[in-house]
């Protein structure tokens, strides 16, 4: 399957990646190749086979008790913040 440029730009926008025309064309070709490869899966007969939801067929979702075991690590949480203000992360103003 090949992607058209509009779909490519849409995917890029949803991922918040800015692409110029040249980059769009490069990504379009690359993504098209990946999709083509994945489409091989369409040849597999899956009639009556329930969708796979995990790789370990017998494992159950592990659960924890409702107790506080984490947090209180403000410095670590903020350690990658490019523009922190005291105890806060900051971002360019977003108001709806």
């Amino acid at each position, binding site marked *: 399957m090949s992607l058209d440029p509009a779909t490519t730009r849409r995917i890029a926008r949803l991922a918040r990646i800015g692409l110029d025309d040249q980059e769009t064309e490069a990504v379009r070709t690359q993504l098209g190749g990946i999709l083509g490869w994945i489409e091989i899966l369409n040849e597999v007969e899956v009639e009556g086979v329930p969708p796979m939801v995990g790789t370990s067929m017998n494992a159950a979702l592990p659960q924890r008790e409702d107790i506080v075991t984490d*947090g209180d690590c403000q410095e670590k949480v903020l350690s990658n913040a490019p523009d922190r203000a005291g105890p806060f992360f900051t971002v360019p*103003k977003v108001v709806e």
Partner: protein
Amino acid sequence: MSYVIEGSTGPWEIVVGLEVHAQVISNSKLFSGASTLFGGEPNTHVSLIDAGFPGMLPVINRGCVAQAVRTGLGLKARINLESRFDRKNYFYADLPQGYQISQFAHPIIGEGKIEIELSDGSTREIGITRLHLEQDAGKLMHDQDPKRSFVDLNRAGVALMEIVSEPDIRTPEEAGAYLRKLRQILRYLGTCDGNMDEGSMRADVNVSVRKAGEPFRTRCEIKNVNSIRFVTQAIEIEAARQVEIWESGGEVDQETRLFDPGRGETRSLRSKEDAHDYRYFPDPDLLPLVIEQSWVDQLKACLPELPDEKRARLQKEYGITAYDAGVLVAEQAIADFYETVAKGRDGKSAAAWMTGDFFAALNRTGKSIEESPVGADKLGAMLDLIADGTINGKIAKEVLETMFETGEAPLEIVERKGLRQVTDTGAIEKAADEVLTKNADKLEQYLGGKDKLFGFFVGQVMKATQGKANPAMVNEILKKKIHG
């Protein structure tokens, strides 16, 4: 009660469905061990999972799952023993992961129902489509800096239940009744505190309009309405807006809108260009959630008595009216208080005093039932004083008022103020004689057929005894004296 909008082309009915986000009461978050406590120092109740650090793996909180199951049971809903988690992808500054873990195709709770009661006493059933578990987002502050928004992730990752109703609601009043009933059930269950002004319960309102008998038309979603009053206002305003568009030959766009109570309008929140495409897919970090029927049964066995059942039981057990029972089950604490008062006493009289003078006094002093200076034991003791004839109903009102002021026991007040009911026949006869002598003219009119004057004589005798005479005895003695 029907609600129609009279347009120029005839009447329109409204179709409303509600999506309620209810914050789950739990100690730690849905997928991390960080605290859910409100009001901590910014970014302290945050784990590296909540902050979206790479490589961190979510582990589900069994307590939150139990809360969702309890809520499902309270909504008489289907419990799905297998459910799944999906990623809802979008970028926003309060969502560090870049996706919200939610349940899309396979929610933990399926169809249920809520019975609502309307002001005219009628009831209606509103269907519940589903309830699913998902993560709350962080909090943004826009007023701290001219160019930047500040981000606090303390709330990020706290468990939410999204409770979706069927589009069964047909009037703004029904929407309000639905929210009140849902909040009451959640509070009884202890699964959400239901405080809309603190944001722990928020509603998205889906509104459309149609002519009677038509299929549904395009709906708009009004996001994040944070009070019941605003929900009813938003519905009225949005429905009127849509009628105007249809009638002027236009087309309503399916979109997300915001309610501005100040301006009394709804307005578009996102341009179509930016319409969200969430690209849901199964969260590869989380296996399907499988719960045991035996565990569900165990949770069911431990559910508290819910409002509808409590109301029916109070009516039956204490012989009170449906209306009084409804008032008394509004909050669990009120119902408990009532039952303490009514136990072993006259349930009707207990209900009358509580819903009457007692609530009036609470309102006047601005106190909740938990803060009431008059406890259930003292109110009960006062009812005992009425029942055994120590005081009459009129004096009891005065005693109750004093109880609210001083916190004294009712008998103390009666003794201190000398309010004991006068049941001494001699004293009442004496007062009656005086009244009749003093009002010989009125007595004559009464004997001449002006029956209403009997009440006047009773009033005068009561006055002469400072309201303390036993009213039944006053009646009897006066009758005997006048008619022989």
